[in-house]
């Protein structure tokens, strides 16, 4: 009985949410839709980082590299091989996943601090490659132009159409993430985070699962990078510096890691902060620093963690009252 009423409540919330999300383009100005489109791709990128960091407990300060591999990979496959844009995004994400696995295999033995350095070095290498490419195939500092996404002949040339496309992508990526973390694979990730030694003792091939986590994460973030390219139709190396990796990490930590909604909330807040403080663009790292400080000092569970604590607190009060009666 109880669970049934809960389910119908959830269903109503789901329907209301869906209607709102679908109706947004009808009421919002173009600029807001652009922001929402960015939000969508950040959700995907940060959810990917969450698999490595939040679930598997491994740090990465090199996710800007996967973001770049997705963006440049998709753009170059389209430009030089003539593959239609949507397929290039998927191929580029798979390439990124393969590279992620190759990077993770040797680094899976590294402890936290060394992994953070190694991943940062990887980010630098990719940055150098795209800014100093042989024959200027990436456009180097002049940047790289590309086309809109083409879905079976239908071009996503408006923010509205991109927004709907992004919505579907977010749902697909989040559903897959949920399936993954609530399965044998996800339990292995979390076990590694909680106690690597015991995970090994329980039959978990730690190296294999670290490689899987990194590889899937690279897929997510690269796909988001490809979305970014085909939303703005232009990229340059500036976007793929360490700053970007730090931004993803800030979004994750601020929103709350190791859960579904943390990345969703965190990417929204940081995106808004960035937009509002546009004038302070040169101080972005400073802003991230402050946000991270807030997390460390005041809300270790991130925004989502704090909200859940509040909800549980209120629930606890309610049951206390009921018990008194």
């Amino acid at each position: 009985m109880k669970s049934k009423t809960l389910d119908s409540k959830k269903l109503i919330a789901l329907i209301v949410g869906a209607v709102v999300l679908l109706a947004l383009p009808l009421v919002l100005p173009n600029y807001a839709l652009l922001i929402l489109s960015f939000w969508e791709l950040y959700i995907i990128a940060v959810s990917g980082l969450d698999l490595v960091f939040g679930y598997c407990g491994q740090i990465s300060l090199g996710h800007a590299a996967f973001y770049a591999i997705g963006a440049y990979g998709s753009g170059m496959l389209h430009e030089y091989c003539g593959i239609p844009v949507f397929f290039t995004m998927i191929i580029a994400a798979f390439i990124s996943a393969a590279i992620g696995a190759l990077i993770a295999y040797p680094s899976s033995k590294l402890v936290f601090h060394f992994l953070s350095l190694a991943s940062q070095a990887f980010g630098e290498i990719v940055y150098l490659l795209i800014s100093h490419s042989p024959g200027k195939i990436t456009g180097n500092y002049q940047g790289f132009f590309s086309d809109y996404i083409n879905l079976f002949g239908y071009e996503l040339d408006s923010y509205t159409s991109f927004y709907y496309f992004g919505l579907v992508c977010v749902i697909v990526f989040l559903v897959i993430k949920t399936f993954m973390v609530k399965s044998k694979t996800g339990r292995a990730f979390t076990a590694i985070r909680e106690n690597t030694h015991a995970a090994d003792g329980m039959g978990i091939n730690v190296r294999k699962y670290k490689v899987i986590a990194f590889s899937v994460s690279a897929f997510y973030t690269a796909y988001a990078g490809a979305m970014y390219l085909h939303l703005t139709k232009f990229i340059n190396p500036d976007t793929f510096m360490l700053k970007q990796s730090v931004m993803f990490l800030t979004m994750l930590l601020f929103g709350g890691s190791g859960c579904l909604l943390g990345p969703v909330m965190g990417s929204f807040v940081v995106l808004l902060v960035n937009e509002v403080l546009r004038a302070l663009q040169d101080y972005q790292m400073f802003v991230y620093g402050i946000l991270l400080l807030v997390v460390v000092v005041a809300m270790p569970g991130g925004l989502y963690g704090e909200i859940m604590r509040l909800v549980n607190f209120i629930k606890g009060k309610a049951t206390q009252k009921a018990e008194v009666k």
Partner: protein
Amino acid sequence: MLRTEGVTIKFGGLTAVNNVSVHIQKKKITGLIGPNGAGKTTFFNCISGVYVPNSGHVIFDGKNIEGKRGWQINQLGIARTYQVINLFWKMTVLENVMVGMHSRLKSGFWSDIFRTPAQRAEERRAIEKAYEWLDFVGLKDNANDPAGSLPYGGQRRLEIVRGLASDPKLLLLDEPAAGMNTKEKGELDVTLHQILEKGVTILMIEHDMKLVMGVCDYIYVLEHGQLLAEGLPDEVQNNPEVVKAYLGGDDE
């Protein structure tokens, strides 16, 4: 079932385990006792793949397993618990048991991310089985609590079923009664016999002599990394060397 031949491991100048050969009989409870620092835990670590012995062999079901990794040895059918409790603290009690099943679940990455019908069916069975294991040690009501919230005795029992969840042939218990009160020790005695009835062989390190002498079929005594004595509980208890090692070692 399990044999070791001259297992030796050194840490720098210290020989923690020195030429130890044991023979663990199938479907029996074997005890491993000895003063603190004798090398008991290190010996367990050599069997379970945490360390690779410097020399000697570990033979399980007729196969040499020294040099294999911990996860491979678990898959072969040896599960263990830890002296220092090593649970996955932030995971629920139920999830801890399900991690213990890892070796026996067939689903892989692709069936997990697409949640195939076979994967769903397997997860459903796994959850049912995990509840059965929790029921076995009286933790069913705590299934959805974080493992870190369990009282001490509960944590010890969870470690045991987490190990059992991989359907091992051999279970290594490192001081399972440590920190338990008399009542809990009595229950553990019963649990150990029930595990044996399920066909699982047990090798147990334990300091509580009453428990060891009561439940073990055979006992090995380790001191300074070397085997000091072995035999039936009565024999070991009356062995003058063992008495000396224990009385000389500390004043317990």
